[in-house]
C-alpha cells in the first residue's frame, strides 16, 4: 500500500516537473520556442566541445536538395556530458543523426537540442530540469 502510494506520488511529481517551465540556460527560454519541438534528419558538420556551451552543427537537405546548416546547443557543459559518457569525439563530421530541437524564435536555423538519435539509438535527451 505504501509502495503504491509512493509510486503515485512519484508519477504526479514527475508529470509536474516534466511540464514545468524551465529556468533559461543563458537565456535559452527567451531565445528558443520551447513549445514547438521540430525533428529533422541531418549530417553532422561540426561539434563544439567547449566551455561553457556545447553545440553541434549539422546539414539538413530539403526535398529540393537544398542544404541548410543548422546549429543546436545543449544544456550541459563538457564535464556534465562527460559524466553521461560523452567526449569530444562522440559526434564526428559525417555522422547521420536525427535531432529534435526547440527552434530559434528569430527564425534562424538554430535550436536548443531536445533529443539526438543515431542508428535508432537515443544518444541524448535533454533533462529540462537542468536547463538554467
Amino acid at each position: 500500500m505504501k509502495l503504491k502510494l509512493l509510486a503515485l506520488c512519484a508519477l504526479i511529481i514527475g508529470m509536474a516537473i516534466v511540464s514545468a517551465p524551465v529556468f533559461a540556460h543563458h537565456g535559452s527560454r527567451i531565445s528558443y520556442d520551447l513549445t514547438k519541438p521540430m525533428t529533422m534528419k541531418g549530417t553532422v558538420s561540426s561539434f563544439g566541445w567547449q566551455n561553457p556551451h556545447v553545440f553541434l552543427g549539422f546539414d539538413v537537405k530539403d526535398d529540393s536538395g537544398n542544404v541548410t546548416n543548422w546549429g543546436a546547443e545543449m544544456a550541459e557543459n563538457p564535464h556534465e556530458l562527460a559524466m553521461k559518457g560523452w567526449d569530444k569525439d562522440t559526434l564526428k563530421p559525417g555522422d547521420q543523426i536525427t535531432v529534435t530541437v526547440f527552434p530559434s524564435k528569430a527564425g534562424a536555423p538554430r535550436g536548443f537540442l531536445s533529443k539526438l538519435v543515431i542508428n535508432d539509438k537515443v544518444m541524448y535527451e535533454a533533462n529540462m530540469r537542468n536547463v538554467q
Partner: protein
Amino acid sequence: MHNSWFRSVVALSIAVGLSCVAQAQTNRQGAAESSAKAQPFSPQDLSGVWILKTPYAGLSNHPPPLTAWGQAKFNANKPSFGPRAVPPAQGNDPIGNCDPTGFPRNMFSPSRPVQFIQLPNQLEQIFQYHSVRRSIWTDGRELPKSPDNLSYGWYGYSVGKWDGDTFIVNTVGLNERTWVDHFGYPHSADMRVEERYRRIDHDTLELVLTIDDQKTYTQPWVSEKKTFKLNPEQELYEEYCVPSEEGNYNDFMRNPAGGK
C-alpha cells in the same frame, strides 16, 4: 491566461505530489532529518561544500527604490532573465562574454557548489564557476578606510568576525562592471555588502545579505534568507567560461538564435 492556468496546474500537481510524499514518508524522512539535525556540529565551523537551495537568483523580489543614477543604470542593463528578458544576443549581460560574475551575484547560483575552507586567520570560499577564490580575512583587520587603498575588483575586499554564532562579513571595493543579479540590477563602486551567516544545524547554513549603496538605491536592500545545504559527497570540478570558446558559441549559436 494560458500561462497562469498552466502555472496553477503545475503548482497544484507539485503541491499534491509533495504532500502525498510527505504523507507516505513522514516517518522515514522525519527520522533522517532528525538524524541530520542531531549530528554534532560546531556553529562556528562553516567548513564544507555547500549548495544553495533557495531558487531565487537575486537578493529578493523586493528591491528598494532606485535613485535617478541607479534607474539610468538599470534601464541600460538588458538581462536575459526575469520580466525584462531579451535574447542574450540582444542583451548586454557581462557574463555573456565570460566576464567574472562578481560578488554578490556569484552567491546566487542554485545547484553550483561553494566550498568553505576555514583557516586560523581567514575563511576561503571556492566557487566552482570560474574556479573563483574569495578571501575573507578574520585576523581582526579593518576594512580599508580610504578608497585609494581599494583596487575595485570583481569580488572586493572582505573582513569577517563572529558575533556569537553569527559570522558577519563586510565587503567593499567592488567595481561597477558587475550586476547584482541575473535581472540586471546595478550597483556603484560605493556599494558595501554585509553577509550574516548562521549554521543552524549540521547540514544547514543560512545567509542574509544586505547591500548598502546610496548612489544606486534609496535604502539598504536586505535579501531574503538564503539556505545552503551541506553536501560532503560533492566535489568541485573545473567549470570555466572560456572567452575564446564563448566567442565561437556566440558567433555560431547565440547571435543567430537571437536574431543578431
